[in-house]
């Protein structure tokens, strides 16, 4: 209970007046002669039986009356009051529109319930309140607007397939609220409170904005989905090479028998069923992609509905390109030459004229034979004497790196690059030290290192060409690689995958997370067919899962395009909510309140700065009742006398009956 005018409680001291009067009432000096004292004495005796009780009751009524009046004057406010009885408040309405709220709660998606709760909170707002609306995925919808405007903004809000860091959004929303001393600050978090939505712990905050979180109804069934999808050859693959799709499933919230079972997986490419498989929940399955013609293709992997629908499928985009044409400049019988010949014969490479990739052994730089190639691959000479000529050749090619003699490199291993093949057991005995010169530096990529940390394979650019620079000649004397089974896969990676700048995109993206579009991009078309202009190299956020098309223009003016897939983040699959206690731990230093899932509970929880219900009218009504009671108690028999006008209550006598006769 709070009081508007606490000073008025001092009026309650008047409650002592009846008590004092009661104690003093027999102290009178007024004396009256009255011979019929015996009747008075009997009356006193008769009354004494009920005197104490009635006097105490009368005393209590009078004291209660004065206290009620004093309390009413003090303006008491009881309880938390109605939903609209709160102090002016700045509210950050954080509403979850991530993929996880697509699960059903009853007959409708949970998102619809969250929207209703948001509207409930807005209906409880007062005209002087200001509202900020923060979807968990996407930009703010409103800032410092009235509840009516905020409700209009909510109409534009839809579900996404993205994920979010709820804690980060709450902090961002809280910091958006102005620190106005006269106004209360409150963050209303309307979410499924997915545990994975709090990936990081927050630092203790002194922010005084209370967090009022809605507790959604728990998931009614386990949620299964596709946790991950990987293309074995990446998103850009040369034609003629078989590739596959690795699918990993996940199941959350299952108990007992429902935790077992398998997921039926279907592969679809360009709208056609391309394969099917079964995999246990939590396991993986690999489905082979069909031979695809050169060009861009779309596909998706889908499982039977299991819980939330949005995570039951994942999309992918793949681009099939012609295999590179490689020309070798060096000793014909060298292991490198033999390897390239082998790959060419297998159809993994093209050989001959018009090569886009020129492979140059250290001693074969004379005459700049690489003219016309877009990628140059350099290996150092086996003899250190040839290093100056090798460096001159690099300089002539515009490469910003130089090779220096490494007197005693020792026996070194290669760090695995994380590719599909392993360098385990491959040793390096001779190498050059690669030193960055003019034009070489941090922007270049070290693809492989020796285990002492020195670069062994560099990728750089020179004169609009891609340059791959090895630190050892691929000879048996310099390294074990030529005699190792890894040699051919290594060469394929070197000449097919690493021999061109990474084609955008390198992988699929998480829906809801901003991505950087290529510098040549001008517009993006989403899966629904809506095209939005973008700035090249800028950010774009795909909010729905599916395949997006990017259109643009190259430096030469030629049209360019690409496509990418966006999918529900794996973190969204687990619908397990945090407990209220865990939620408090997520926001150290803040006041955290939870309520729900019923609307009434939520309505009772929002707007913490309630002023309570005005109890003064009730107290005044009580005072009136006490006044009436006081009149009845203080003047016993009054009503009866007024109606009987006295005579009928006189003692009857024969005399009076005679007189009347």
């Amino acid at each position, binding site marked *: 209970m709070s009081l508007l005018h606490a000073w008025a409680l001092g009026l309650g001291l008047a409650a002592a007046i009846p008590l004092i009067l009661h104690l003093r009432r027999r102290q009178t000096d*007024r004396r*009256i002669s009255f011979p*019929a*004292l*015996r009747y*008075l004495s009997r*009356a006193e005796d008769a009354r004494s039986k009920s005197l104490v009780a009635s006097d105490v009751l009368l005393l209590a009524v009078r004291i209660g009356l004065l206290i009620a009046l004093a309390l009413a004057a003090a303006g008491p406010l009881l309880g938390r009051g109605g939903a609209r009885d709160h102090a002016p408040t700045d509210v950050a309405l954080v509403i979850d529109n991530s993929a996880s709220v697509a699960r059903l709660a009853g007959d409708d998606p949970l998102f619809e319930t969250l929207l209703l709760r948001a509207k409930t909170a807005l209906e409880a707002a007062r005209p002087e309140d200001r509202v900020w609306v923060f979807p968990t995925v996407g930009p703010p919808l409103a800032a410092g607007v009235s509840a009516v405007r905020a409700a209009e903004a909510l109409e534009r809000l839809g579900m996404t397939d993205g994920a979010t860091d709820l804690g980060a959004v709450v902090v961002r929303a809280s910091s958006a609220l102005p620190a106005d001393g006269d106004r209360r600050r409150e963050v209303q978090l309307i979410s499924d409170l997915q545990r994975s939505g709090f990936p990081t712990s927050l630092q203790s905050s002194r922010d005084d904005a209370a967090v009022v979180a809605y507790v959604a109804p728990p998931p009614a069934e386990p949620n299964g989905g596709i946790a991950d999808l990987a293309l074995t050859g990446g998103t850009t693959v040369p034609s003629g090479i078989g590739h596959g799709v690795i699918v990993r499933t996940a199941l959350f919230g299952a108990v007992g028998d429902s935790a077992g079972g398998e997921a039926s997986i279907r592969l679809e490419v360009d709208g056609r069923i391309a394969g099917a498989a079964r995999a246990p929940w939590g396991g993986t399955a690999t489905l082979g992609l069909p031979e695809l013609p050169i060009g861009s293709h779309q596909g998706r992997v889908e499982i039977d509905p299991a819980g939330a629908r949005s995570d039951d499928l994942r999309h992918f985009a793949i681009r099939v390109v012609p295999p590179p044409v490689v020309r070798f400049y060096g000793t014909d019988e060298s292991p490198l030459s033999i390897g390239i010949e082998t790959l060419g014969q297998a159809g993994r490479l093209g050989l001959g004229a018009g090569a886009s990739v020129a492979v140059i052994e250290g001693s074969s730089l004379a005459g700049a034979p690489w003219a016309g190639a877009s990628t140059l691959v350099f290996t150092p000479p086996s003899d250190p004497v040839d290093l100056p000529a090798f460096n001159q050749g690099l300089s002539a090619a515009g490469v910003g790196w130089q090779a220096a003699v490494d007197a005693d490199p020792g026996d070194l291993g290669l760090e695995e690059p994380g590719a599909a093949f392993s360098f385990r057991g491959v040793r390096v005995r001779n190498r050059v030290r690669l030193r960055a010169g003019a034009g070489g530096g941090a922007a270049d990529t070290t693809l492989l290192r020796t285990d002492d940390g020195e670069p062994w394979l560099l990728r750089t650019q020179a004169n609009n060409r891609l340059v791959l620079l090895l630190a050892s000649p691929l000879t048996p004397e310099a390294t074990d690689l030529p005699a190792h089974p890894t040699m051919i896969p290594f060469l394929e990676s070197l000449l097919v995958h690493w021999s061109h700048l990474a084609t955008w995109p390198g992988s699929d993206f998480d829906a809801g997370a901003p991505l950087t579009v290529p510098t040549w991009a001008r517009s993006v078309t989403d899966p629904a067919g809506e095209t939005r202009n973008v700035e090249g190299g800028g950010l774009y956020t795909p909010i729905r899962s599916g395949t997006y098309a990017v259109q643009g223009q190259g430096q030469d003016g030629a049209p360019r395009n690409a496509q990418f897939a966006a999918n529900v983040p794996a973190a969204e699959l687990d619908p397990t909510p945090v407990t209220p206690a865990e939620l408090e731990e997520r926001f150290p230093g803040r006041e955290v309140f939870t309520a729900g899932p019923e609307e009434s509970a939520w309505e009772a929880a929002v707007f913490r700065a309630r002023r309570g219900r005005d109890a003064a009218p009730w107290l005044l009504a009580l005072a009136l009742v006490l006044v009436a009671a006081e009149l009845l108690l203080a003047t016993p028999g009054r009503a009866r006398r007024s109606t009987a006008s006295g005579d009928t209550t006189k003692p009857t*006598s024969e*005399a009076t009956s005679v007189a009347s006769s």
Partner: protein
Amino acid sequence: MSEPTATGLSSLDAARQRLDLASPREIAGLAHLELVARGIVEGFLIGLHDSPRRGFSAEFAENRSYNKGDDLRYLDWKVYARTDRLFVKQFEEETNLRAYLLLDVSGSMGWVSAADRYPTKLEYARLLAASLSLLLIQQGDATGLIAFDDTIRNHVVPRTTRRHWRRLLGELTGLTPNGKTEAGSAIKDLSTRLQRRGLVVLISDLLVDPDTTRTALRYLRHRGHEVIVFHIMDPGELDLPAAGEAIFFDPETGEELGANSAALRKQYRAAVEAAVDSWRKESLRAGADYALLTTDMPLGIALRQFLRKRSRLS
């Protein structure tokens, strides 16, 4: 006997015939008790009555033959001289009633709640006694008076003459309220004085010890006396005065009681009703008549009450 011409009688003349119905306050303020009492009685207009029994009063009725054992004093010697036969004289008894008025003159009888509206209880009782005595004497009843408080203060032996009535008025006029009340002893004392059965009229506010008084009344009845009890009360005793918080004290005993009249009014009325009811029931049980008179009631009411009793005795 000449008519008195005291001051104030002129206003009385017009209403003389109905003084029995006049306000007690008005007639108590008049100076001459005899005239007032006459006015009341004449207004009341009660005729004489015959004695119910033949006795040995002065008026001769007839002769009868002498029988053995008759009192020789009543032999009619004149008839014997003429007829040589013995006759005794028989007389018609005019009255054999001897009435005593027992008047309470204790201190409480002098109390009045509103002097401008009511007479004191003693003034009212004095008028009542004067009127009753005149009524009795006019009927030939011998009427006496005993005034008492805690002792007998005045005692007038019953007589039937008008002179005796004037003496009674003189005694009544001289009475003043004083002392405590002890009706029981006065009644018992009276009963020892009454040799013949008669009528006892007790006029009191009955602020007495009820047990001894009732015992004494029963004793009177046991001795064969008829008893009428006139209970005189001031209207202010029926209803507790609106005095608020005050200390009430008994003028007779000095006893005090602090009380709030507003808070006790209901219970006080019940106590008075209970007391009156008790007196009525106890009187009836003892064979006595009981009448409650308040000092605002016309005296004719009291006389009518008395007349009914007296007619039964006839």
